[in-house]
């Protein structure tokens, strides 16, 4: 049997070349932990790579903060985080940070009779809603932007994520970028001090509350909104155009972002470009620069190399946004900084 002989040959190669060859052998297990937002995608990628490359991924969706802690303690092969780690922390813990994929956050509303992508809002107005300064849907500032829509006189009921989350981080980053008052009074973090509204747990909690309460506004991951047919709004971007929450507009934001930031910590919030959706975010992977097991480190890089090359269809199918090609190239180049005994682990031979 040909396959048997091949297998025997492979075993011989493994025995001869030891560690470096072991990485290319069948059924390498890698473990990762962290951000819950990209977890469904990593799961799907894992199933696909198992068939394609034999790398088996075990990903635990435990939250970005816990993911950072785990990779700092080296209990997993890679960590995953929605918000970028501070440069000095990366330095101190000898970690390499790179983006895996992007997602976007969208406002959702419950206004009977108003269709998806119909209502026009600006970041300043949304910030003032969440500061409790605009309290009625027929406020003149909202009405001015929506002359063709008959706005109800309902009270606005703002809904936010009660649990500490990367989604909140991106949302308040955007509101802080466009509203100085919001930046000063609330600021940026995974959980912040809200002055009005009600909190709900998880994307499903926010969506459920918005669905229940007439006149509610909330924010969720776009993937969640798309899969549950929630009513999203338009937002005005930096160029002054009103844009809808669509895949093309997310791509436009990614293409217009400045990816030259150190550690790939690019801000995709309120980017330039005529069609850019203003609330887009990369989600990050954290890798040790001094891995104990070269084989595992190489397998992690192989996994994401495969995901960059062949994983785009799966990503867009799940409403995530693949990275622009030149960013993927830059990430591959950065992998060469990962060394074991002074030798680069990537590119794999």
């Amino acid at each position, binding site marked *: 049997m040909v396959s048997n002989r091949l297998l025997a040959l492979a075993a011989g190669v493994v025995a001869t070349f030891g560690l470096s060859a072991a990485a290319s052998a069948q059924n390498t297990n890698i473990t990762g932990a962290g951000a819950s937002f990209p977890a469904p995608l990593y799961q799907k990628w894992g199933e696909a790579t198992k068939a394609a490359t034999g790398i088996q991924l075990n990903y635990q969706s*435990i*939250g*970005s*903060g*816990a993911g*950072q*802690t785990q990779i700092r303690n080296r209990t997993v092969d890679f960590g995953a985080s929605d918000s970028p780690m501070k440069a000095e922390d990366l330095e101190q813990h000898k970690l390499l940070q790179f983006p895996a994929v992007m997602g976007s956050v969208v406002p959702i509303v419950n206004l009977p009779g108003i269709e998806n992508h119909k209502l026009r809002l600006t970041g300043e107005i949304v910030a003032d809603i969440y500061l409790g300064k605009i309290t009625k849907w027929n406020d003149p500032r909202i009405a001015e932007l929506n002359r063709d829509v008959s706005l109800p006189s309902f*009270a606005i*009921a703002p809904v936010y994520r*009660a*649990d*500490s*989350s990367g989604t909140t981080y991106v949302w308040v980053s955007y509101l802080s970028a466009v509203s100085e008052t919001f930046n000063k009074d*609330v*600021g*940026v*973090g*995974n*959980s*912040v*001090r*809200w002055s009005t*509204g*009600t*909190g*709900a*747990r998880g994307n499903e*909690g926010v969506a*459920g*509350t918005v669905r*229940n*309460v007439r*006149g509610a506004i909330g924010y969720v991951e776009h993937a969640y909104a798309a899969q549950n047919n929630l009513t999203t709004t338009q937002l005005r971007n930096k160029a002054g155009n009103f844009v809808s929450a669509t895949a093309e507009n997310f791509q436009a934001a990614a293409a217009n972002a400045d990816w030259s930031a150190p550690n790939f910590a690019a801000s995709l919030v309120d980017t330039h470009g005529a069609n850019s959706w203003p609330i887009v975010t990369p989600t990050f992977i954290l890798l040790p620069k001094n891995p104990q097991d070269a084989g595992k480190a190489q397998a992690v890089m192989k996994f994401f190399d495969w995901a960059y090359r062949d994983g785009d269809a799966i990503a867009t199918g799940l409403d995530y946004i693949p990275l622009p090609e030149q960013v993927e190239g830059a990430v591959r180049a950065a992998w060469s900084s990962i060394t074991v005994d002074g030798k680069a682990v990537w590119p794999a031979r």
Partner: protein
Amino acid sequence: MQQAVPISADNAPRQEPGGASPAILRRGGSGALGDAIFAGACKAAGILVLLLLGAIIVQLFIGGLDAFRTFGLSFVTSTEWDPVKEVFGAGVSIYGTVITAILALLFAVPVAFGIAFYLTELAPAWLRRPVGIAIELLAAIPSIIYGMWGFFIIVPLMSRYIQPAVIDTIGTLPLVGDLFAGPPFGTGILTASIILAIMVLPFIAATMRDVFETVPAVFKESAYGLGATQWEVVRNVVLPYTRVSVVGGIMLGLGRALGETMAVTFVIGNANRISASLFGPGNTIASVIALEFGEATMGSLKLSALLGLGFILFVISFIVLAASRWLLRSSLKA
């Protein structure tokens, strides 16, 4: 956090120490060693509880020390909770914890009493078992299920029908109106209290039923013989006889209500504000810890504040337990 409250210890039939039968005494020799081992094992188990309790308290206190040092007494009184500026105060969550637990008891105790009264005095014999089992099953439902049920069934019901109706009628009255004002989110202090009441109901009802059944038939028969009505029998014979255990059952419920986490997190609205309205959102100590713990990094002031909150919850539970003991001190001695 639940306290173990001795249920009807005073009513249990007492076994006299010297009451062992001669057959057991005749076994002889090996019994002495067995006794010593058994006594030692029981003693170790008893001490283990004390050690565990002490270790948890000390650990929580040490963990929260950073927050206590940074904010001093204002950690307990301040209503500010701002993770961005790293200012933490437990005021709102302490208020939320206490008020939801008290409201829950207010709703649950009368119903639990009704259930126990019905099952022991009024219900036909064939119905007692099924209803009794149903109550025990209610207690076995995991709290996350109550949370989801509350969020998907009770909250929409509240926000679409009950709250708008109440806000438009009672909410417009002077004085009382403030208690029922605000937007009809469906979530909030009142909804959380209702869910909590349903959750503690089986504990209180089951305890009450069990202790009502321990009342010797002779006492009740005598009262009936004197011409007392069913209500008078319960009021003047059953309740005084079982008072300690009834309060114990209520305390058991209160303990569960104070520490309940998942269900409350779903329905309380999770806002760090004290609102005059019962429909307003709030939070509790347990819900804040559950929501914020996942993203609190090791060694941060936030993590310390969360552990400090845990310590405060421990202290509140202890005060509740101590207060109930103190209230019952005369009857316990008797």
